[in-house]
Structures are given as structure tokens and as C-alpha cells.
């Protein structure tokens, strides 16, 4: 079975600072995908960034980047230059090849002005 663990239920960061959200997962699969989704108060699930497990290079999307450590089964999200609009719940998700998602319990991030 696949499990996704987010050990930080809540985090806060000063505006313009950098914050890292942790995620670990457990799987016996060799090919899979990892995602970070953002859920603002509106409850919409918004894709932030994705990573293919077969790629060694860490994904980057503007201010968002990941640190993917396949051997350690770790997939952390770094948000640089935090903005007030980054305040949201962040979910780490694992997907076997083109299959259902397995979500973590989420990290509530608050950006403080």
C-alpha cells in the first residue's frame, strides 16, 4: 500500500522569506509521480508542481521547487519569496503510473505580513 506522510500540520513564514514543507512516502513501486497541490480557503485544489520519479533533476516552477530524494522517499517543497497569496493548505500526493492519487494529511501554511 502507498502512504504519504506530512509531519508538519501547521507552518508559518514571514512574507518574502523561504519555507520548506516536508513530505515522505512509502511505496514498492519504481515508477511513480509526486505532486504538490495547494488548497486555499476557497477549497479549490490547485496543482503547484509535479515530479516524475525517474527524473533525477528536481522540478522547479517559478518560486516553487522540490527536493526529491528517491532513496530516502522524500519530496519536500520549497517556497521562495513567500507571498500572502501562498497562504493555503498544501497537500503532497503520490500517484502510481496513471492511477489514483494518495494524499498526505496536509500542511497549513500561513504567510505573515
Amino acid at each position, binding site marked *: 500500500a502507498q502512504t504519504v506522510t506530512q509531519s508538519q500540520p501547521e507552518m508559518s513564514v514571514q512574507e518574502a522569506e523561504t519555507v520548506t514543507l516536508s513530505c515522505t512516502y512509502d511505496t514498492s513501486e519504481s515508477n511513480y*509521480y509526486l*505532486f504538490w*497541490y495547494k488548497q486555499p480557503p*476557497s*477549497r*479549490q*485544489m*490547485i*496543482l503547484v508542481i*509535479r515530479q*516524475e520519479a525517474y527524473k533525477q533533476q528536481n522540478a522547479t516552477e517559478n518560486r516553487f521547487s522540490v527536493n526529491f530524494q528517491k532513496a530516502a522517499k522524500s519530496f519536500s517543497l520549497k517556497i521562495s519569496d513567500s507571498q500572502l497569496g501562498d497562504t493555503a493548505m498544501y*497537500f503532497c*500526493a503520490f*500517484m502510481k*503510473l*496513471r*492511477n*489514483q*492519487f*494518495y*494524499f*498526505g*494529511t*496536509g500542511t497549513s501554511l500561513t504567510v505573515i505580513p
Partner: protein
Amino acid sequence: EPEVTQTPSHQVTQMGQEVILRCVPISNHLYFYWYRQILGQKVEFLVSFYNNEISEKSEIFDDQFSVERPDGSNFTLKIRSTKLEDSAMYFCASREDRVTDTQYFGPGTRLTVL
């Protein structure tokens, strides 16, 4: 930019009543999903649907649940006899094809069972 839409945004129903939650996936997408999120908890997979049939379902998706793609655009989730514990946010998602991996989520329907 194309997006997944869901209606209604909020549904209130009495226990034991049937509800139908509606989703319009992105038009060229072939794979469809329903997830639910009980308040304060993580998002949980319910069911996936492809080629007019269920491809996978979780243990949550029991006989009270059914899905349908009645026409070329809508994808519905029916709960036959709602229970208090069905109160949750229900998310629809779609994926383009067999090759792509990203699922795009709708804004969700908040279901409240009284």
C-alpha cells in the same frame, strides 16, 4: 484555460435522501475521478472511470455510490441514501489521456447531510 467545473457548490440534504453531484471534466480528457475530503482530513480517492466503466474504486465506494457519464460532457456521482458521515467536500478530477499523469481538480461540492 479549460477547467473542471462542479455543481452545485454546496448541497444540503436530509439523511436518507439521494443526491447527485455533477462534474464537467475538461472536454478532451478521458479519465475521470471522484475524491472526497471530510472536514479537517485528507483527500481520499473514491473511484476512477474510463471508457464508460469504473476502472478502480476504494473501499469507501460501496453500494450506496454510483457514477455515470450520461452524455458526452457530464460525469456524476450519486449517493443513493445519504448518511451523516457522507458530509464532506467532493472533488471531481480529470486526466487527459493514458500518457499524461496530472489530474486537474474541480472546485468541489460541499455536501452537508442533516
